[in-house]
């Protein structure tokens, strides 16, 4: 990589960061105004169109290909998942650091070192064998730790359910992954997205009963995916939203019919 490209690689994330913070600032002010039932979805009409597109994509491409991929022995598929996960570890370490999570930084660094060496380039999860706990985070979580609001719900084409904050996180993570963005050149640049694609297919196959149930067996798959995504994401981010943010988490014995 030439010097000018390297500078660009560093300059771009900081531009993105500013954009991220600006966007997220808007997101925060929106939170209260349009929120009802703990869901802030002012772009529902547009989101539903994207959802229909994503569903078509899953039905015609992702689901059948994932079923085909399911024929590959599970050990081999897990190897691809391990490899892809290991490539993401430097990013996890950096985000943990940005969040002031030193333990997470340590775990991610140790995992990356172990799996890249003993795990032969990340194909095997040696760290897991050595009882090093799993750790995952992203820039969306970093923004959350920094106090940025969730923003509106957005369903992204191909990527699926997200929020304004997580969309910014996704973009920043993509451009700042120190391993892929700054070190890989030429054909090697295709390796991480290919591995990621394999991992996504594997997950699609592994959780097919659950995903099929949400997408194809529910009455309103859009609102079901939205609700499930938001609950799960808030849970991951450690927002114990059960009592105050989420009115439904209230005790059903008090008034089961309460809205």
């Amino acid at each position, binding site marked *: 990589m030439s010097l000018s490209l390297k500078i660009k690689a560093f300059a771009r994330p900081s531009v993105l960061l500013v954009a991220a913070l600006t966007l997220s600032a808007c997101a925060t002010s929106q939170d209260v105004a349009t929120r009802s039932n703990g869901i802030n979805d002012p772009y529902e009409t547009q989101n539903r169109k994207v959802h229909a597109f994503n569903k078509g994509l899953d039905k015609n491409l992702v689901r059948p290909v994932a079923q085909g991929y399911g024929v590959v022995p599970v050990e081999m598929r897990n190897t691809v998942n391990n490899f892809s996960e290991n490539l993401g570890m430097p990013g996890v370490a950096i985000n943990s650091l940005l969040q002031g999570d030193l333990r997470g930084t340590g775990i991610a660094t140790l995992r990356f070192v172990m799996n890249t060496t003993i795990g032969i380039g990340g194909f095997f999860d040696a760290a897991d064998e050595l009882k090093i706990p799993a750790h995952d985070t992203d820039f969306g979580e970093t923004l959350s730790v920094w106090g940025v609001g969730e923003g509106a719900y957005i369903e992204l084409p191909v990527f699926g359910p997200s929020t304004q904050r997580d969309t910014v996180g996704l973009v920043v993570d993509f451009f700042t992954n120190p391993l892929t963005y700054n070190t890989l050149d030429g054909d090697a640049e295709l390796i991480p997205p290919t591995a990621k694609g394999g991992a996504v297919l594997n997950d699609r196959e592994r959780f097919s*009963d659950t995903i099929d149930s949400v997408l194809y*067996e529910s009455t309103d798959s859009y609102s079901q995916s939205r*609700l499930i995504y938001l609950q799960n994401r808030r849970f991951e981010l450690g927002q114990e939203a*059960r009592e105050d943010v989420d009115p439904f988490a209230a005790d059903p014995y008090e008034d*089961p019919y309460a809205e």
Partner: protein
Amino acid sequence: MLSNLNRRDFFLSTAAFALLTAQPALALTETDARKLVDEVVADIDRVISSGQSDSAVLREFEKLFVRYADVNIMAQYALGADGRSASASQKRAFNDAFTGYIARKYGKQFRDFIGGRVEVQSARQIKAGYEINTLAYLRGDGPFEVSFHVSDKSGRNKFFNIFIEGVNLLLTERSEIGSMLDRRGGDINAMIADLKKAG
């Protein structure tokens, strides 16, 4: 509008306060709640590893659901505000349809638990009783955090909600039942007929 809301809030909190103070101290202990979850887990395990046909397994799940869950309060909550206008017979019909629906829908996914195990981790007190936190280890996967909310307010120790990785089963099903009602223009009987076929 605002004053209406306030009045309603005031009414609700008064009602809640009256309920809380009128009730005797909770008889349910943490040990009871943990025991219930242990039993549920052991029974699910037994059914899964029994090697029965899928339809037999689902029938067993329906029985377990009725035995261990407070189906009545779960169904009422899932029906939500529309439940206020439902007749007693509609509520009964909805209860039955909801029980079968839950057993079918979640029973199918329990198949993923074959060869896995569930470990009780911790407990904490919640308004209606206890929350029992468990970790579900699926074969080559997970672990997933699964929490059971247990209460004795039905008169017996039963669970009334499950959270899977933060996803609230009752809330998710209330939204789904709401969508089913919307599709039928609010016709509860038509929704119940649909529910019998869903899941």
